[in-house]
C-alpha cells in the first residue's frame, strides 16, 4: 500500500456493460445515479471508457456475440480492477439458461469478484455490491495482479494477438 492507494476507495469509476439482458438491471443502475440514491456522493462516476474505469459492472446473460467484446473490455481495463456481475442472468443465464445463443453467465468468460443476486436487484443491493467490490479492489495490488501468470491468464481468456 503506497500513499496513493489509500485514496483508492474514494473514487470508483464504473464501466457498465449490458451483454444482451432485458434492460431491467440497467434501469436500476440509472436509478442509482439519479438524485434519489446518487452514488456520485461516494465519488462513483459512470465512465463509458474501459481505459479509465475501475469497476466493470456486467448485466445480462453473455450472448455469443457479446462474448468477445466483454473479454476485450476486461482486458482493456488497467490493473487494479474488479468485476461485478449483476442480476440473475449474469449469474448463470437466468431464464435464458442453456439457450443456443447464450454462454450461461459472466463467470464463463471473465473472472468475477462480486455477485449481486436478484431479478432485477434493488438499488440498495447494487450499492451494497459496489461497496463490497470497493473493499476487494482495495486489497488488490496492481503489480501482483498483472505480473503473476500473465501469459497463462491471457491464454486462458483465449486472446490471440490480433494486430
Amino acid at each position, binding site marked *: 500500500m503506497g500513499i496513493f492507494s489509500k485514496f483508492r476507495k474514494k473514487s470508483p469509476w464504473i464501466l457498465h456493460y449490458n451483454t444482451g439482458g432485458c434492460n431491467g438491471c440497467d434501469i436500476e443502475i440509472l436509478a442509482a445515479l439519479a438524485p434519489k440514491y446518487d452514488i456520485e456522493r461516494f465519488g462513483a462516476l459512470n465512465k463509458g471508457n474501459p481505459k479509465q474505469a475501475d469497476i466493470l459492472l456486467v448485466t445480462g446473460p453473455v450472448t455469443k456475440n457479446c462474448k468477445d467484446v466483454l473479454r476485450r473490455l476486461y482486458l482493456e481495463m*488497467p490493473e487494479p480492477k474488479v468485476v461485478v456481475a449483476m442480476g440473475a442472468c449474469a449469474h448463470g443465464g437466468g431464464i435464458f439458461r442453456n439457450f443456443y445463443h447464450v454462454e450461461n453467465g459472466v463467470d464463463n468468460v471473465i473472472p468475477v469478484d462480486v455477485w449481486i443476486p436478484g431479478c432485477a436487484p434493488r438499488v440498495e443491493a447494487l450499492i451494497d455490491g459496489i461497496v463490497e467490490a470497493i473493499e476487494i479492489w482495495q486489497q488488490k495490488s496492481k503489480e501482483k495482479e498483472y505480473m503473476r501468470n500473465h501469459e497463462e491468464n491471457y491464454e486462458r481468456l483465449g486472446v490471440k494477438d490480433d494486430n
Partner: protein
Amino acid sequence: MINWIIFAFLAPILGGLIYGIERVVKARMQGRMGPPVMQPFYDFAKLMDKRPLMIHSLHALMGIMYFVAEWFSLFVLFLGHDVLIAVFFHVLAVLALVIGASSVRSPYSVLGALRELMHMISYEPFMVLMVVGFYLVSGSFSINDILQSEPLIYKLPLVFMAFLFIIPMMLQKSPFDVAEAHQEIIGGPEIEYSGPFYEAVYTGKWIEYIYVFFFMFLFGGRNYILGVILVIFAFFFVNLLDNATARLDFRKMVKFSWIFLIPLAALNIILLALWR
C-alpha cells in the same frame, strides 16, 4: 511578485478545488447531494495508482505536454508578461492534445481530435480580438498594466458578453462540449489515455479553469472586487448553461461563434477605436 509565483505553482491545487466546487454546484442544481469538494484530488491519487497502459510513447508524451504547456501559459499570465503569448501557449497546449489524439488508430480519438480543432477555430480568433480590446483600453499587452487600468468591462461590455459564451467552448461545457461528448465519442481526445497519463490530461483541465477565469478576472481591471464578482457570476452562469442545455452540432458551434460572437466583439472594438 513572489506571491504570484507561489500562486502559479499552486495553480493545479486551486484548479482542482474549483473543479470540486463545480461538481458540487452542478449536483445541487440537479437536486443531488454531490461528491465531496476534495473529490478531484481523490481521483488524482487513484489515477496515479493505476497501472500505466501506454499506446505509444508520443501519445503519452503529448498528454503530458498538454499539462505542461497549459501550466506554462498560466505562468506567463501570472508573472505579468504578455497576454498574447499566454494565448499562443494555450493554442500550443490544445495542439499537443490534438496531435496526441490523432496519433492513435482509435476512430473515436481521431474524431475527437478533429472536433477539438473545430473548437479552436471557434474560440481562438475571439481570444486574439479580446486581447486587442484589452490593448485598446489599457494601452499595453502586459498583465501588470491591464491590472492598473480602469475596469475594462465598462469599455468592453459586448466582448464580455461574447466571452461568457466562449467559456463553455473552452472548458467543453454543455451547449458546446462537442469534442468531449462523453455519450457518443466517449471523452473524445482523451479516450485512449489511462492511468497516470490520463491524470496529466485531467490536471491540465483544472489549469484550464484557472486560465479562463483569470481572463474573466482581468475584465475587472484595477477594481479587484469587481473582478472577483465577475468570476463568480461567470462560474454560476456557465454551470447553469451546462445543466440547462443539450449538446449542439459542431457546425452550429462554429456558426454561432463566427456569425454572432466574433462580429459582436469586433463591433465593440471598432467603436472603441473610433471614439478613443
